[in-house]
Structure formats: structure tokens, C-alpha cells
């Protein structure tokens, strides 16, 4: 019994302190040590060698899974096949295969991503391509990685219709070494590369990480209003009357509406009043130059750029012919 305890203690003590650093010496490597001694005995110089001590490098099972997207993946409610990108790294010192599993019951989820599926980055370009990247099947294509090798994995989910704006939903991916998992130091005799012992490292032979979607009900609403002033101080749309148009573009919800623009044709039977185009109260020139707007081809065009949670207002006037 004492012997077993000592052996277990030995295994635990063998474990190096650092994590997630690729191990240098491959499992199965044979290491030999031999000393030599030389001396003089009554003027005769003699040299001899010691016995050779041979050590076998055991396999350390370690892995690390990392979520690769730089930030939450913005998704619209109701969309399907939204991709989260992960990377699996074999940080052990041998060849290892890994079992993969998804789980969307993640603490803090405001919505549950639906229908999780795992794909392997078969063509190795780091981007999901449904024509090239194969779905993961636990029986037939477990990722197999050599020492210090890594590969990209994709988790696809559908986003439920009813998801509210700004809600977060995570999907967890777990990778587990096929040889085994357990507390650091757990040994699997003979299960390592070439029949050496395999020992579980600080990762415990398993790694789990979640990626997060952020729902966005991004809305861009343009509201146009018109105010008529006739030459007689009234509001009748008679020839010579001025119509002041006001277009308010409001962006709401999570995320950024990029490249928003307004294009409004000058109504038939009216003429644009020169130098009346404004954006947020600031005058814009009528010509096509380096400001945000112009009057061209019978229409008012204003480029509003990338908008997030704000309203921008365009005004201009026309005269009724």
C-alpha cells in the first residue's frame, strides 16, 4: 500500500508547474546517461565508462481550447448557421485524438443558441466554408493532433426568433483527450505513444470554453416631414410657395449600421432652393465635393456614414413651380 502511495506521489510530483506551454521532448524518446572516469595508477593512465542509465520519456496529456472570435458575434434574431470560431491546441508531448462536445446551458445566458453543430476546419484556412469543412462525427473524424499542433474548430448555432435586442447567448465547446482525463497525475500505463505511459497534465485532459453571440435588432428608421409656406404668409401649396423638408434618420438597437445614406428625389413640379441643404443644422454645399452631400441628377444625396444609437437630420427646401 505504501508503495502505491509513493508511486502516486511520484507521478504528481513529476508534473511541471507551467501550463499551456508546448512540451519539448516527444513521448517515447529514449534518453541515456553515461559517465566516464579517467585516472592515473602508477604512471598508467586509465579511462573507463559507467553503466548507461536509460530513461524513457512518458506522454503528458494536455490540451488547450481557445475561443478565437475577437468579440461577441453580433447576430440577428431568426438567423441560422451562425459561426463561432475555436482553436484546439495539443500542449502535451505526444500524438493525441480529442472528443468534442457542445453544451448551450451556459451560466448567464440571456438566450439559448439553438441546434449546435461542430465542424472541423478541414481545409485549414481558419474560415468556415460549408462546401469544404466537414461536420464532426465522434466515431469517424475526431481531431488528431501531433505534439504542439493545433487546429481550428467551428460551432454553428441558430438564433431563436424571439431573442431580444442586446441579449447574450453562449455556446460551450469541450474537448477531451481520447486516451483519458482526470486529476493531474492520473496515469494510463502503456497508453501513450509507442506504448509508453501516459500521464494527465495540469489541463486534466479536458478543456472547455464558450463563445458568445450578441443579438442585435438593429433598426434604421427615416422619417420625412414637410412644412409649406406660401408667399402670402399662409401654408397653401400654391406656385411660389416654399416646402421645407426634414428627414430624420434614427438608428436604434445593438450594433452599427454602416454606410447609411439618404437619397431623396426633388419632387416633380418643384425646384430645389440653392444653398438650403443642411446636415444636423450645418450647411452643406450643393455641389459634389468632399462634404457629405450634394444635389445631383434631380435628387438630394447625403452620406451619413456608420451610425450607432443616434439620429441625424437632413433638411432642404424646394419651391413649387
Amino acid at each position, binding site marked *: 500500500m505504501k508503495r502505491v502511495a509513493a508511486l502516486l506521489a511520484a507521478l504528481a510530483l513529476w508534473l511541471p508547474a507551467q501550463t499551456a506551454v508546448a512540451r519539448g521532448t516527444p513521448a517515447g524518446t529514449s534518453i541515456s546517461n553515461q559517465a566516464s572516469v*579517467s585516472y592515473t595508477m602508477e604512471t598508467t593512465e586509465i579511462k573507463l565508462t559507467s553503466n548507461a542509465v536509460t530513461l524513457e520519456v512518458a506522454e503528458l496529456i494536455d490540451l488547450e481550447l481557445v475561443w478565437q472570435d475577437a468579440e461577441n458575434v453580433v447576430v440577428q434574431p431568426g438567423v441560422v448557421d451562425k459561426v463561432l470560431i475555436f482553436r484546439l491546441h495539443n500542449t502535451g508531448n505526444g500524438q493525441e485524438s480529442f472528443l468534442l462536445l457542445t453544451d448551450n446551458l451556459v451560466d448567464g445566458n440571456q438566450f439559448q443558441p439553438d441546434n449546435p453543430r461542430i465542424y472541423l476546419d478541414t481545409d485549414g484556412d481558419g474560415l468556415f466554408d460549408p462546401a469544404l469543412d466537414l461536420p464532426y462525427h465522434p466515431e469517424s473524424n475526431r481531431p488528431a493532433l501531433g505534439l504542439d499542433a493545433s487546429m481550428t474548430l467551428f460551432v454553428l448555432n441558430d438564433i431563436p426568433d424571439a431573442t431580444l435586442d442586446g441579449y447574450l447567448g453562449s455556446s460551450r465547446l469541450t474537448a477531451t483527450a481520447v486516451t483519458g482525463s482526470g486529476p493531474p497525475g492520473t496515469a494510463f500505463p502503456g497508453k501513450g505513444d509507442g506504448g509508453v505511459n501516459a500521464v494527465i497534465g495540469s489541463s486534466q485532459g479536458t478543456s472547455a470554453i464558450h463563445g458568445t453571440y450578441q443579438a442585435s435588432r438593429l433598426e434604421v428608421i427615416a422619417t420625412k416631414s414637410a412644412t409649406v409656406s406660401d408667399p402670402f404668409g399662409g401654408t397653401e401649396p400654391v406656385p411660389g410657395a416654399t416646402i421645407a423638408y426634414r428627414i430624420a434618420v434614427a438608428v436604434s438597437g445593438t450594433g452599427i449600421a454602416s454606410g447609411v445614406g439618404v437619397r431623396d428625389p426633388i419632387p416633380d413640379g418643384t425646384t430645389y432652393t440653392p444653398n438650403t441643404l443642411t446636415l444636423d443644422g450645418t450647411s452643406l454645399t450643393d455641389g459634389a465635393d468632399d462634404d457629405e452631400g450634394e444635389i445631383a441628377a434631380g435628387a438630394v444625396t447625403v452620406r451619413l456614414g456608420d451610425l450607432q444609437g443616434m439620429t441625424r437630420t437632413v433638411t432642404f427646401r424646394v419651391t413649387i413651380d
Partner: protein
Amino acid sequence: MNRIISSFLLLALVALPGLVAAEVEISSQALIEVEVVNEKGEKEIQQIQATKVLPGTELLFVNSCLNSGEKAADDVAIHNPVPEHMTYVGGSAYGKGTIITFSVDGGQNFASPEKLTVKDAEGKESPAEAKDYTHIRWLLKKLAPGEQGEVGFRARLN
């Protein structure tokens, strides 16, 4: 004629270790230190023979030299290369009454740590570190008949 001489030399070389083995012997061990709890419930460090090792493991290499003959062995030099895939643990070499020096050039030259230098890719010289050591040498003036000397060092598996 040349050929005959070299055959003689070869025979002599092969025969020597056999002849002297009875006078001075050197044996080498690789040990791992493990913490165990003894019968009194106290933690103690035990050294066990290492056979299977994991990367990051620190090993203790011990060389014992015994003079079992009737004559003294003079100018005893024990050499041990730092094993492949391993890194010498700084300050770990020991050997009572020995002068310990190290080599950073595959055992060509030996010097004390403060005198060892290495050159980088651009030829710039800098003080050698423990990781640069390739060989260790222990020098002992005399090993008297019946005397046993022990030298050792620690190295970590990369």
C-alpha cells in the same frame, strides 16, 4: 607492419577496461525525488530510480566511484555530459573534495561558471548560463584504496 601495430593497440584498448574494472569502478544512477508520508505521518523526500519521465521533471544523476584495488588512483577526472533533451539545473553539481568545472562546447574546454562565455548568432559574447552547459567535470587529486567518492548533478527534461 602498420596494420599489426594498430591491431595490437586495439586489443590493448579492449582489454584495459576488463583489467582495471576490479580496481576502480564507476556506476551511474538516475533518481527522482518524491515526497512520501512515512509511518509517523511525516512528509519525507525519497529518492527512487527513474525509468519513465515526463517533460519538466527534474532528475538527480549520481555517479559513484569506488577504488576497490590496493593502489591509489591519482588525478581522477569524472566526466558526465548533460543528457540529450535535458537542461542542467544551475548550482546543482556536487562532489566532496572535487574541483567542478563545466563545458559549453561539447566537452572540449572546461572552466568554472564565471569564466564561461557563449556567443550569440551575431558573434556577441555573453556569460554562459546553466542551460548552455554541455558537460560537467569533477577533478579529484586522489582516490585511496577502499575509498568511495560520489559526485552528482541535477537536470530537467525539456
